[in-house]
């Protein structure tokens, strides 16, 4: 074969892809030695194959490097100490015949059987350990989610306790505000501390407002509405909303206003109202 026949025969591609038989490899290697252009063609093709392979690179686990470095460091230390045993020495033990007493043979056989048994148990137990590991991890994650759930409940409970303490005060006056004509099912309650003059509002039943709307509490003093502030209804754990304090009022009412509240109430959006005395 001349150089161009080598190049067009498909032998180079077969060689580089690992497809070539040992006869074909020999043939091509002779060609490479004989013709520099064949050699160059093989090298080029190999470089491209290596580029293809490198495109599929992936970083291995970092433990592998640690393992390898530890093993070679140990080997080098052993070589310095003269305790290193060549692998080949282990692979090809000398085959001198050694006669052993039958008792020892039985012991060796027994030890061998025990070893097999132990290997088998290792296999079984390693399977079990993996199983337990999986179960342990599952438990751990369910424990974590339970812990966060329990935190959630605790916050809720604390909020409710705080609300209870406010309502429990003996100087607390409750003002029930019933639904107005357009909103008959609406209901809310004002808790008004007669001593500290603090006012809280509790929503018993008010529809969820649109995103740009907010409920606003009003006190009617001397026939005029006084702004008591706006409140959110989204958080169900927050039973009582602290509003502005007021010394005296004849009535309380809630209207739905644009977010942030209005200077005066939109009367056709009055949901609830109730007499304070």
């Amino acid at each position, binding site marked *: 074969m001349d150089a161009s026949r080598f190049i067009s025969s*498909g*032998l180079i*591609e*077969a060689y*580089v*892809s*690992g*497809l070539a*038989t040992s006869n074909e490899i020999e043939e091509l290697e002779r060609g490479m030695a004989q013709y520099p252009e064949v050699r160059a063609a093989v090298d080029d*093709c*190999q470089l*491209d*194959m*290596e*580029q*293809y*392979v*490198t*495109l*599929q*690179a*992936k*970083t*291995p*686990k*970092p*433990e*592998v*490097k640690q*393992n*390898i*470095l530890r*093993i*070679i*460091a140990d080997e*080098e230390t052993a070589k310095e100490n003269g305790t290193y045993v060549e*692998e080949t020495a282990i692979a090809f033990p000398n085959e001198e015949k050694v006669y052993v007493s039958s008792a020892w043979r039985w012991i060796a056989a027994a030890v061998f059987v025990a070893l097999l048994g132990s290997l088998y148990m290792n296999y079984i137990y390693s399977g079990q350990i993996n199983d337990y590991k999986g179960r342990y991890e599952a438990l751990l994650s369910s424990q974590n989610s339970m812990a966060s759930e329990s935190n959630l409940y605790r916050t809720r409970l604390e909020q409710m306790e705080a609300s209870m303490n406010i309502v429990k005060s003996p100087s607390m006056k409750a003002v029930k505000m019933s639904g107005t004509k357009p909103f008959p099912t609406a209901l809310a309650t004002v808790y008004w501390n007669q001593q500290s003059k603090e006012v809280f509002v509790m929503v018993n039943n008010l529809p969820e407002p649109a995103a740009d709307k907010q409920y606003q509490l009003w006190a009617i003093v001397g026939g005029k509405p006084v702004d008591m502030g706006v409140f959110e209804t989204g958080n169900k754990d927050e039973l009582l909303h602290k509003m502005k304090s007021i010394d005296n009022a004849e009535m309380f009412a809630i209207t739905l206003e644009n977010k942030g509240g209005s200077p005066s109430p939109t009367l056709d959006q009055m949901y609830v109202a109730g007499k304070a005395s």
Partner: protein
Amino acid sequence: MESAFTYTESELVQGLKAKDQKVFGYLYDRYSPALYGVALKVLNDESNANDVLQEVFLKIWRNIDRYDESKGRLFTWMLNITRNSAIDTLRSKAHKMDQKIQDIGDDVHLYTGNLTVHPSVDHLGLSKVLEKLTKEQRIIIDLAYYKGCTQEEISKVLEIPLGTVKTRMRNAIIQLRNLLKLV
């Protein structure tokens, strides 16, 4: 752990032959992703591929004196060790050709174009190449290179006459090389 400086290939070889562990660490950082990629493609199993990678780097360390610079580049030598070790492992795990073919079939990321499993890969480059190869071209290259299949085995798997295996391989590799020029 990445080394801040680089070595030329002959410095690498000299360092390795002098049993310089720092050079070896550099060699690992530089080449382990490519070699691991090969082992993973052959075995299709991360744990086995990690084992093979460890075995390969120990072989490189212990047998560096057998490396002959006049016969080829260091990377080619390391690639061959990796392919051979991985394919040996593959054969010891499943000698049946069915299994090899099964593996090729399971290796879906290659044949469906879903490349997300290779995070460190130059996605664009690889997918550009793979898209333009026909399925048969990809399989014939991978069966030979990554699964160590013989011409007879490939002829059976792809149901093509034995005499055309080499021609098909040649065409596949020519196409592959043209595509690589575009990457």
